[in-house]
């Protein structure tokens, strides 16, 4: 009872926040944090059951570019373009993940295959430069006046805040839904021992595909949202290995096994990046990633449960399995 009250209060505070304090710059930071939190949450749903994908940068790029390309070239509204982008990401996930799972490519192998995937999506975007603008980036055509519901373009930060908040909350809701589903038990069993899980009647390939496709579609959604918000995407910001690793980093730092871990990770990484940018200006180019990389290594060695995971663990003072 206490807990649900807490959720209601948090929800009211989050929804009401922009009406009390809505300066553009902090709003921009918060919207960015919410969108990336959603992407990180979708990665963590796979990562927590031992499916370490480094291909999520690829899925994000597919979502972002598919939506923008359909809008610019065919005039297809993002309300339809985003679902198309999600389907494309799901298909890509199926094509890559199905042989992986079918032929028991796990662990290192899976990480390397998906790593290659995110590298290749980057190459494809760069190679089709006549269509996508290559490494120079791509801008969705603006509607006259700047805001349009049909074109999914809004100039008001408040509108974007609400959209990002809803999507982020939906991401958490999906996380909890998976947490309570049979899918999670199946996946945990698989991550412990595939043969034993299969012997117990778990359809290993199918269960893994479910979570992969779900995760890929959510990531593509984040990419499309990011593109519509920024009105600019470049291959380096939404695809490629560095984006994939950025997801890993944020989730590991925040906490892989708790629902709000990826959000905490997004807050830390984005504030760190912004802080360095404001504090040191252009001389800070590269320093943020330098610190991310270093922290990632330090966290994996000394605090593998992440910041939020460790704090919650300390509060519970119970064995790690008590939460389950």
């Amino acid at each position, binding site marked *: 009872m206490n807990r649900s009250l807490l959720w209601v209060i948090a929800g009211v505070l989050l929804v009401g926040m922009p009406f009390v304090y809505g300066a553009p710059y902090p709003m921009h930071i918060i919207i960015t944090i919410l969108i990336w939190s959603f992407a990180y949450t979708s990665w963590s749903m796979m990562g927590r059951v031992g499916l370490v994908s480094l291909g999520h940068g690829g899925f994000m790029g597919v979502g972002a570019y598919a939506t923008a390309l359909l809008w610019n070239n065919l005039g297809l509204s993002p309300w339809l373009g985003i679902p198309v982008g999600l389907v494309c990401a799901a298909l890509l996930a199926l094509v890559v993940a199905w*042989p992986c799972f079918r032929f028991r490519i796990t662990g*290192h192998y899976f990480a*390397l295959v998906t790593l*290659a995937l995110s590298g*290749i999506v980057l190459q494809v975007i760069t*190679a089709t430069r006549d269509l996508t603008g290559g490494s120079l980036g791509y801008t969705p055509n603006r509607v006259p006046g700047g805001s349009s519901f049909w074109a999914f373009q809004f100039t008001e930060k408040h509108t974007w805040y609400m959209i990002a908040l809803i999507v982020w909350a939906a991401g958490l809701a999906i996380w909890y839904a998976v947490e309570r589903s049979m899918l999670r038990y199946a996946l945990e069993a698989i991550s412990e021992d595939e043969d034993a899980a299969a012997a117990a009647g778990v359809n290993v390939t199918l269960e893994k595909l479910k979570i992969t496709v779900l995760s890929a579609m959510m990531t593509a959604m984040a990419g499309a949202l990011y593109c519509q918000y920024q009105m600019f995407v470049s291959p380096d910001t939404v695809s490629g290995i560095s984006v994939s690793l950025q997801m890993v*980093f944020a989730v590991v730092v925040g906490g892989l096994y708790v629902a709000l871990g990826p959000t905490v990770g997004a807050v830390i990484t984005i504030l760190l990046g912004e802080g360095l940018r404001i504090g040191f200006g252009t001389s800070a180019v590269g320093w943020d990633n*330098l610190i991310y*990389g270093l922290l*990632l290594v330090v966290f994996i060695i000394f605090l593998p449960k992440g910041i939020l995971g460790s704090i919650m663990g300390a509060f519970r003072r119970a064995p790690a399995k008590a939460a389950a």
Partner: protein
Amino acid sequence: MGFLDIFLVEALINGLLLGGVLALLALGLNLIFGVIDVAWICYAELVMFGMYAMYYFVSVFGIPLWFAVPATIIAIGVMGVLLHVLVIAPLLGAAPINQLLATGGVLFFLQSLATVVFGIDFRNLGIRLPTLEVAEVFISYARLLAFGAALSGMVALYLFLTRTYIGTAIRAISQARQIMALMGVDTRRIYIITSAVGGALAGLAACLLVLQYDVHPYVGLSFGPITFMICVMGGLGNMIGGFIAAFIFAEIISVGGLYLDLEWGYVFAFVFFIGMMFIRPQGLMARRS
């Protein structure tokens, strides 16, 4: 038609020569995977640092090549040891995926370190080796040299692994990790030596790549993914499989790049890779059990 054929022949030969260097990289990665059971995601970034080392030794400090090459190889070998001691060794008992992610952090770190220290300019040695003309086909000496040196490096590694005591211990560990420790082999020492050899192979590859390509902080991304695909297709830890896969991939990239952009060559390689996973999921040389 005959006109096209010459370009095709040239592309095939260039692919063969590129394959040598890729095979060298795959070999280093496979060696580390086979022995330590860790995939160094940041392997291509070690190569990038090697390329910078060569650039600074040769172009900035004016050190002659005969000294710069061994110095680079040793420097990257030392980097390999540092990577193992600082990052991998504390994580040897952790879940394997943590080691992989930690090397991902190192990838980030090295890339940004290069950006901060060296800047984002493209640099090259400024050495232009002549090209060899054989029956209207042009082959650059740089590539020939790279191919030759890569092959000699692999032969040297083969001799080291088969003819020396330490080499034998390394091969034994890759076959039975626990047993070797029981037999009184100091696994820690073997791991460090393996990391040094793996790093040295990256250093050698760097010396060869810097003759053909400009170096910049993100150069690792252009051949890192391809190296991983080669290793997975060859079967991680399987050196002969990796060797063959390297040449297949190099030919696909080279011939694909002839008809379309080079990026498309990479895309074809990936499509081929996915296709091959259906046919030989355990790697090229896997025995069917």
